[in-house]
């Protein structure tokens, strides 16, 4: 393809100049439409297109760069920063950088081979062939585009009407929402009043009930605290093991299993830190709460919560170490790894991993036989719970002889129950209405493009099968990577740029040693919605290329003309002065 021999460049350069001046008015590499720009003034001078310099017209294409913007050498590589026009007769004219002239490469943009004219490399004129192919290709594209554009218009119609519909729905809901809210508020105050009465009653019997409850729960609390101690000890054992592993593992081994475990542990620590911060913040507000004497039930719950948390942490660390043990490289003999596995092995027989609990340790149920406060005040969220509780309290109380508490009660059961039921109904209505409004608002606010065409894609899911994985995205929803299990690659976050052809999905599952997974979805025009290719240019940053009619935009009049006349956009030099001809 390439014939290498070194030219006698000087004579060539000179002949070039002559050719330009005498034979053809148009300097090499200049588009016919710009012939007036490339003509001498009356004194045979010519100004660089950025206006910085005036040179003899004969210096154009003399294979020496005179103009800082490179505009004096459109037909040689001397400046390398200018543009060369290939007429590509039989196909579409094109521009290439003058740095590509006579560089031994037949640039595909210049199918006429005019970019290699020094005789070193012969590039044949393949414009006929390329032109035919490209016309075919273009016809195909145009057809596709036409069909895509038609579908797109349907999308837009759908999108606009659906938006309108949503808007109307929203407005309707918003209109009635105040009366729904009012109803909820009204029933709430009725319930509050009923509750207040009940509370008053319970308050008067509080001390006795608490004393009984204390007696009843004391041994259970004791037992729960022992478990908590145990769990805390194991937890710190694991923490130490993982800290040691992190500190002492041999990084030179690049053992991915060890790396993964340490990454997971770091994530856990991070989470822990976040939680602590949160708790510190919320605790600041509730100093009083802390100082309050806590009931037996509260203490029991606290101990249960703490035990649960400790076990959860143990379970997580157990899993981290277990995964490492299954996958680590036994040939390395890394002391730190072996030590961590030893801790795991010693502990494993006492641990039921599937239920995240110590083997044989059953949950301590809190007996409800005693009459008690359980819930002193029904919270709005606990729909209907109070009536049930109240029932149970009453039943239990009479069973253990505390029924006297309810004797002669001034609070009728049905009063609270009825109020509760009314409130439940009203607040459910309210919740539904709010949810619906939020959902609609979100949909209405989402940017479905200038004419709402993308609304059609909402919740449409497309898949792409690769050797190892299947990649999917539900548009405006979530992107996933699937093999034996699903990994989230992110949820729709925003459009990229202003062209409505690239979407960003963020906040996917975090990578080992990397960021949270994310996907960029780049769309091109096609008649159906499908993913064409998936790649991972950077670790855990994916790129989907997909086709969709939603981006088959109308061709502008200009673009149509261009494509009809096959003319490229005229290249204008940066800093080029406005010419009347343009």
């Amino acid at each position, binding site marked *: 393809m390439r014939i290498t021999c070194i030219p006698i460049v*000087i004579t060539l350069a000179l002949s070039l100049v002559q050719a330009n001046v005498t034979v053809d008015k148009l300097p090499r590499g200049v588009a016919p439409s710009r012939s007036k720009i490339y003509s001498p003034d009356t004194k045979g001078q010519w100004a660089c297109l950025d206006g910085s310099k005036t040179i003899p017209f004969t210096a154009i294409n003399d294979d020496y760069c005179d103009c800082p913007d490179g505009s004096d050498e459109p037909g040689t590589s001397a*400046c390398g920063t200018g543009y060369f026009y290939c007429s590509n007769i039989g196909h579409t004219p094109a521009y290439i950088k003058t740095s590509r002239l006579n*560089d*031994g490469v037949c640039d595909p943009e210049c199918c006429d081979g005019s970019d290699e004219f020094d005789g070193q490399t012969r590039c044949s004129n393949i414009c006929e062939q390329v032109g035919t192919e490209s016309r075919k290709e273009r016809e195909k594209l145009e057809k596709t585009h036409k069909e895509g554009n038609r579908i797109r218009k349907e999308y837009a119609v759908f999108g606009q009407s659906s938006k309108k519909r949503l808007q109307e729905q929203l407005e309707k809901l918003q209109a009635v929402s105040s009366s729904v809210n009012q109803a909820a508020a009204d029933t709430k105050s009725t319930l509050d009043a009923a509750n207040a009465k009940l509370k008053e009653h319970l308050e008067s019997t509080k001390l006795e009930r608490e004393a009984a409850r204390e007696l009843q729960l004391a041994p259970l609390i004791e037992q729960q605290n022992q478990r908590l101690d145990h769990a805390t000890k194991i937890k710190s054992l694991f923490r130490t093991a993982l800290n040691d592993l992190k500190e002492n593992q041999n990084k030179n081994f690049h053992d991915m299993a060890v790396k993964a475990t340490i990454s997971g542990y770091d994530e856990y620590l991070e989470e822990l830190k976040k939680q602590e911060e949160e708790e510190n913040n919320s605790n600041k507000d509730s100093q009083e709460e802390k100082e309050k004497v806590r009931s037996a039930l509260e203490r029991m719950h606290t101990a249960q919560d703490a035990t649960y948390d400790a076990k959860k942490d143990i379970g*997580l660390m157990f899993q981290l170490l277990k995964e490492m043990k299954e996958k680590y*490289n036994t040939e390395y003999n890394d002391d730190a790894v072996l030590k961590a596995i030893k801790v795991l092995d010693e502990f494993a027989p006492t641990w039921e991993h599937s239920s*995240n609990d110590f083997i044989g340790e059953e949950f301590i149920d809190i007996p409800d036989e005693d009459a008690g406060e359980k819930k002193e005040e029904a919270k709005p969220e606990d729909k209907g719970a109070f009536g049930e509780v109240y029932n149970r309290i009453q039943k239990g109380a009479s069973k253990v002889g505390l029924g006297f508490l309810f004797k002669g009660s001034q609070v009728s059961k049905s009063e609270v129950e009825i109020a509760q039921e009314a409130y439940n109904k009203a607040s459910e209505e309210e919740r539904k209405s709010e949810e619906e409004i939020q959902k609609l608002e979100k949909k209405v606010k989402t940017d479905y493009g200038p004419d709402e065409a993308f609304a059609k894609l909402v919740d449409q899911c497309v898949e792409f099968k690769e050797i190892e994985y299947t990649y999917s995205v539900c548009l405006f929803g979530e992107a996933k990577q699937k093999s034996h299990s699903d990994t989230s690659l992110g949820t729709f976050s925003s459009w990229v740029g202003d062209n409505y052809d690239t979407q960003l999905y963020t906040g996917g599952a975090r*990578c080992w*040693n990397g960021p949270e997974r994310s996907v960029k979805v780049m769309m091109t025009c096609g008649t159906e919605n499908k993913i064409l290719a998936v790649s991972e240019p950077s670790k855990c940053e994916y790129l989907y290329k997909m086709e969709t009619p939603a981006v088959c935009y109308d061709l502008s009049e200009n673009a149509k003309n261009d494509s009809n006349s096959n003319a490229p956009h005229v290249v204008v030099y940066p800093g080029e002065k406005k010419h009347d001809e343009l």
Partner: protein
Amino acid sequence: MESAQGRIKSSKRRTIVRSVLGLGLALACVSAVKREDFKTCSQSGFCARNRAYADIAKETPQWVSPFQLNPSSLRLHKGVLTGDLINVQEDKQPSDKPALAFELHLLDTDAARVRINERNPIHPRYDGVQDTVLIKPYGHATEESYQKLGKDENGILTIQYGAQSQNTVRISSAPFKIEFLVNGVPTVILNDEGLLRFERLRNKEEPKVEEEEGEKQGEEASSDPLVEQKPGGNEIEIAIEKSDLEKKLEENLWEERFKEFTDSKPRGPESFGMDITFSGINHVYGIPEHASSLSLKATRGPDAPYTEPYRLYNLDVFEYEGDNPMALYGSVPFMLGHSKNSTAAVFWMNAAETWIDVEKSPEDKTGGLLSWIKSKKAVQPAATKTHWISEAGVLDLFVFLGPTHRDIFRQYASLVGTTALPQAFSIAYHQCRWNYNNQQDVAEVDAGFDEHDIPYDVLWLDIEHTNGKRYFTWDEAKFPNPTEMQESLSAKGRKMVTIIDPHIKKDGDYHVSKEGAELDVYIKNKDGSSDFDGWCWPGSSQWIDFYNPKARDWWASQFSYDKYIGSTKSLFTWNDMNEPSVFSGPEITIPKDVIHYGNVEHRNVHNLYGTMFHSATAQGLTHRNETNQRPFVLSRAFFAGTQRFGAIWTGDNVASWEHLELASPMLLTIGLSGIPFSGADVGGFFGNPDAELLTRWYQAGIYYPFFRAHAHLDSKRREPWLFGEPYTTQIREAIRTRYTLLPFWYTLFQEASVEGTPIIRPMFTVFPEDEAVFGMDDQYMVGDAILVKPVVKSAVIRSNVYFAGKEKWFDIKDYSVEQGPGFKDIESPADKIPVYQRAGTIVPKRERPRRSSKAMENDPFTLVIALDSVGEASGRLYLDDGESFNYEKGDFILTEFKVSKGVLSSRKVKSTTATSVESSFAEKAGGLRIERLVILGATVPLKKVTVGDRTLQASCSQVGGSYVCTIKEPQVTIGKDFDLSFA
């Protein structure tokens, strides 16, 4: 936000444990080298013993070396002095069978060689390093070229030698000491401190019943008769006599442990050490590879910055630290000392583990040296004392006395070889990443460069391109058509490099593994029969024994196109992990007691292994299907002589400002140690550089002889255009600057290939008399013409640059002028670092932007001529076809340019090997023209410019106090002599 947080809190008790697989991390990378994975001197038995010996010498008043030459045994014949060396402590009576043989060779290059070996060891000590490191048997000095000056009253034998009889060597018999003098000034002194120590091979004595340390095997200890251990009495007196230090001399002789590894040491102790004093010299350089300063720091003495000796032991060190004498990937036991008055160097030819202590002697503590110095007033009363310790082999030392740097580089290169002239593409820009994922990715990156108009020459594929880390194979799903891929790159003049490591996956279905097993070419376990098996990227692997000639040839044959399926002429090779890196081995390398061909224990040759691999690979590329193409192979491990086989890089650096800063001293050190073709990964391998760091790294990296960007698998993509503006433009500008200077670089490589000169040069080699630059390593010279000061700190926009000498310096971009000597604050905004051309030099360039170096080969040249204060300048241009060996047959152009008295003369240098090949490159390229002359430092604007009978125009503008003049189209070529006069 609030509601979400609230939800998390309220549902805390009910949270389900998140899948561990879904867990990731937001790790701030704070990890770094694990020092405890690598030995300190005290954990390396022989180093500890020899250092203890030095301590004893230091603590002993009037220490006298026990080594003596038997004067009557000395013979000088044909440039070789031989004699018997006695250790008066060990050889109690002057025996007729002296243990050590001493040799001093005077070489025809004015260098000298000192050898000490055991005369009749129980088994031969390994002496094979010379066979692979020295390029040819050297010539000895002729009898006429040296003169024995006889013995003086102290029994000191003096011999004068050297082309100008400038050198003298004085040999003292008792105690043994050798002094090298240049023009009467002592420069290099051996055993001046009396630290020579030589562990003779011996049979292991059955452990005598002595005091047990209590830690030994309980059973044996208890079964031993305790009768002889009388409590109290005579033994105690003896015990007192042995100090702690003396006990150290006997430790870890027969076996030693490090972490969970045991070195069996079947031959027992065989180390040796000796001190080498650089007299009157305060700065020593060399002994790469360390992440440290150019001027070596003291490791001994009261104010020493380091407490550990510099270590030479090729190791794969993860995220190495800066400012540290720890061993790294390569070793060159070459040290150069320099003072205002003298320059000298030594080459300690040993490939076993080696440690070197450096001690600076302050002015008032020269001690024994004073007697020498008194008689010579000009000598600086300072010295650098070095202590060299090797684990095995023979003491084999070369001493180079210059007298200039250039002489030393030539003398050293005449022994170990110069850098091979590389293919032209390989000094252009390389784009690498672990990993470019597949063919599509490769095509997109390639297109990205064109789209952003950034030139590049080579695209690299790391280990993931293979089928399961089986080298010479492709992952067929990702790279279904490698040939097509390479051809589409080569159509644009571009190349590809794939990685090939020395560990071979143990897999009977893998052709390389199978053939290797059949041919029996793997390194053996210490038993000498079974193959060593260790762990590396592919899992269980074996290591090819490149000491086996059969293995080398077989390996080389793997590179032929019909063996390496999917390789083409435009595919080249990257040799990594060749220290060798063994994940499961001691210090992440192979155990010392494994066995090579010829029953050679690995400990003898460790530091050479990587080079043997590098060499066999280069051989493979050179001979694949007889293309007459020069090879290109990048290696991580290196040793003296590596320069003959290809380039090296500084391994797994980090994307930090510190590592950017480290690159300059490391590359300068490696370069002056004979390996000029080297680079540091631009951007830093580990971690993510921000846009500023990456841009600054490119601006510095274009001045590395080997210029490659690389990135870790876990790092974010960082192809030059990914950070957007203004960075893309700044990086493009930097890479283009490299391309414009390629003719200058290629000329420097040619000079290096002939003269052994470094390509990037420490300031002191260009300004040897300016003491201000002796310790300077934050700025340096490219050749003798271009000064570079990289910006290595964030947000720095002014740099303190030292302009050496009394001449002017010209900014290579805007031609602004600075006047030396002295420091000056220079603007270094985001788009440039200070780079200056020195007055008196001529730099050839090709200024047309192109997409690859190949695409520039028909382009005309620009000469940038920087006149000095008397209006003179000189420079040269070397050009050949850039890829074949035809230059060896004289097919090249070497043109010298000189300006004097207003005339620029261009003279083609006749090639000495004038057997020109048919239709030669030189003939054709001779027609390439010089399109532009830029003359800097003219005192007046040029008015009349003529070549022959033609008159040319110069356009001049005033910059600072002088003129910059450009002459358009002088219509001259590089192949034809011309004189151009200007006034």
